[in-house]
């Protein structure tokens, strides 16, 4: 589709861009930054209107972007994540009041970048959208410029990110040189028709995997995670652990499924091994963490490992559904956990585990919610997290021998769930079984309570009544466009 015909398909993105720029402008005149935050949420929700989750798919801008149900799912997901992040930033204390306007507009721009990532179907678009998301993320991680840890986190994040993205760019140049095209479709057909040597292609895939692995915190590229998560403002940490990871998976999945189907056996076993390593490493290191942000950072690495299992299995419908379901449940429980972190750190100025001792006595409701999210993250049966894990597990078993590591991955998931249970329960033990050192009231602002309520509500609802969501996801994944 050419440029003019493509415009109706990018209304959501246009709304975000226009809204974000408007917010930058309004920031000059409006001194009540809270209003700007609500404006940003309104912009995000407005962008939902032109979306059609049951679209039949279109390639727009001469094949630069693909609009299909898969990308639409991630666009909706983006809106959900970002509006919640903005909501929980409203009462996050450590942000500088004066710059909140820019903060909200940057989050809107970030949503724009994530939407682009979700539908990129061209190496150029892929690189640009990742660049947009990364750049904005670096800025937001560094947002507390008075806080040295924030700057340090941003610097580390930036350096790792730049290296990863340049490696990916290098791999892309090889691909371009080899195939003479940037579009996924052309590269795919080149590989389908040609007799490309898989050893050569494997190196390009590794390079591209490096860039995408950085976004999803896959193991060789995970070492920025703990520092960046700890130093960043907590809402941004929440974003990094859910938002950028989710679209990272979307891109990873789409790229490998669309561009390299001819080399499925290579990359699927590679990703299988990486998935096992990622989840094991994340869980084992998380056991020894005393800072909750770091703990959740390592746990998010582990969860990335679980989702990677779905990517490694690849083409089965089970795998697609598993990835989407897992991301959705992970969104609910992980953001919920971060909301609690924000509430507590607003009062206590600390994310250390020992400061959570006796939370059940100081704020019983909060502790109960936290326990719920942690149980869900562990994957305790009736809760939403269980279904996510179950889907992944089932996908791995169902794949059988199509991936040489699928049974191993299933075993790894089982073992890792046990390890994960240890450190999640340690937090619960700290809250319920340890006596508090002081009984000061924990202030719970309305916006955070609202966000928390939403997360709890949906976690519980999904636990009890998953079928409509599962149906929606099934429809989404059945329409993923391949060539």
């Amino acid at each position: 589709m050419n440029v003019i015909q493509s415009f109706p398909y990018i209304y959501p993105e246009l709304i975000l861009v226009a809204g974000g720029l408007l917010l930058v402008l309004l920031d000059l005149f409006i001194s009540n930054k809270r209003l700007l935050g609500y404006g940003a949420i309104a912009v995000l929700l407005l962008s939902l209107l032109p979306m059609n989750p049951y679209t039949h798919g279109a390639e727009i801008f001469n094949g630069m972007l693909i609009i299909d149900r898969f990308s639409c799912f991630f666009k909706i997901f983006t809106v959900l994540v970002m509006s919640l992040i903005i909501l929980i930033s409203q009462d996050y204390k450590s942000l500088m009041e004066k710059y909140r306007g820019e903060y909200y507009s940057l989050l809107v721009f970030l949503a724009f970048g994530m939407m682009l990532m979700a539908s990129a179907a061209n190496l150029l678009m892929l690189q640009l959208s990742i660049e947009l998301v990364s750049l904005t993320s670096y800025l937001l991680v560094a947002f507390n410029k008075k806080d040295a840890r924030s700057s340090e986190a941003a610097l580390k994040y930036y350096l790792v990110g730049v290296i990863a993205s340049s490696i990916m760019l290098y791999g892309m140049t090889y691909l371009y040189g080899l195939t003479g095209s940037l579009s996924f479709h052309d590269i795919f057909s080149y590989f389908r028709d040609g007799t490309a040597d898989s050893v050569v292609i494997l190196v390009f895939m590794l390079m591209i995997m490096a860039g995408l692995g950085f976004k999803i915190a896959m193991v060789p590229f995970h070492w920025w995670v703990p520092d960046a998560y700890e130093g960043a403002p907590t809402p941004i940490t929440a974003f990094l652990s859910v938002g950028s990871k989710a679209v990272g998976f979307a891109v990873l999945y789409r790229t490998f499924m669309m561009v390299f189907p001819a080399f499925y056996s290579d990359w699927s076993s590679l990703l299988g091994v990486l998935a096992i390593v990622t989840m094991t490493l994340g869980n084992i290191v998380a056991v020894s963490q005393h800072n909750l942000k770091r703990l959740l950072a390592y746990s998010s690495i582990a969860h990335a490992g679980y989702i990677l299992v779905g990517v490694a299995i690849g083409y089965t419908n089970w795998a697609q559904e598993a990835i989407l379901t897992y991301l959705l449940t992970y969104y609910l429980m992980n953001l919920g956990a971060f909301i609690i972190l924000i509430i507590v750190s607003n009062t206590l100025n600390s994310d250390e585990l020992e400061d959570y001792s006796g939370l059940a006595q100081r704020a019983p409701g909060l502790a109960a919610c936290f326990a719920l999210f942690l149980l869900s993250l562990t994957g305790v049966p009736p809760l939403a997290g269980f279904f996510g894990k179950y889907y992944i597990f089932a996908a791995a078993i169902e794949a059988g021998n199509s991936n040489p590591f699928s049974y191993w991955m299933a075993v790894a998931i089982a073992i890792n769930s046990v390890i994960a249970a240890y450190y999640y329960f340690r937090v619960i033990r700290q809250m319920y079984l340890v006596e508090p050192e002081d009984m000061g009231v924990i202030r719970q602002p309305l916006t955070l309570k609202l966000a928390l309520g939403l997360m709890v509500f949906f976690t519980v609802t999904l636990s009890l009544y998953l079928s409509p969501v599962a149906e929606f996801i099934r429809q989404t994944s059945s329409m993923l466009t391949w060539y």
Partner: protein
Amino acid sequence: MNFPFIPDEEDRIMIEGYMEQIAFLILALFAVVGGLITVTHRHPIYCALGLILCFLSISGFYAMLGAPFLAAVQVIIYAGSIMTLFVFVIMLMDLTREDLKMPPSKFSTVVASFLGFVLLLEMLMIIGGGFLTGKMGSWTPEKVDSVGHTRVLAQVLFTEYLYPFEIISFVLVVALVGAILLGKKKLHLGGKE
């Protein structure tokens, strides 16, 4: 270039061929030496100088390959950006010589050489394996020449690649907002600092 001095057409072509080869060899030498300096030198200023040597030589290649616009843009952009790099080096780093002579870590040298070797092998495999007979793009040199190099670039940029082009400008907007945000000195409106 048209040289009036050499009457014989064949001689002229041969001599021009030699001149091109000489220019290519000089540029290639500079590019490789610049790259080596960038990677191996311990002094950041020299690294940056090596980098610009390398980039300028590459822009010479572009010019020789019939892409003068790319060559000019390469020079403009990298001259500016490497100057900025210099400024950062000077302002952010302590250039006392002792620090700079810190030996590189053995491990990273070994790993990096190994990876570099793998990539070299990769490159040789592609070139030697006949992979380079990839698909011909839609813009052949003859077609480009008939329309004009800059015009082709503009046409492609503003039709096929319009959306990415706009995205780049948007990335720049975000970068600007961020730079202003992080670079601003005063933390509070009317504050004490």
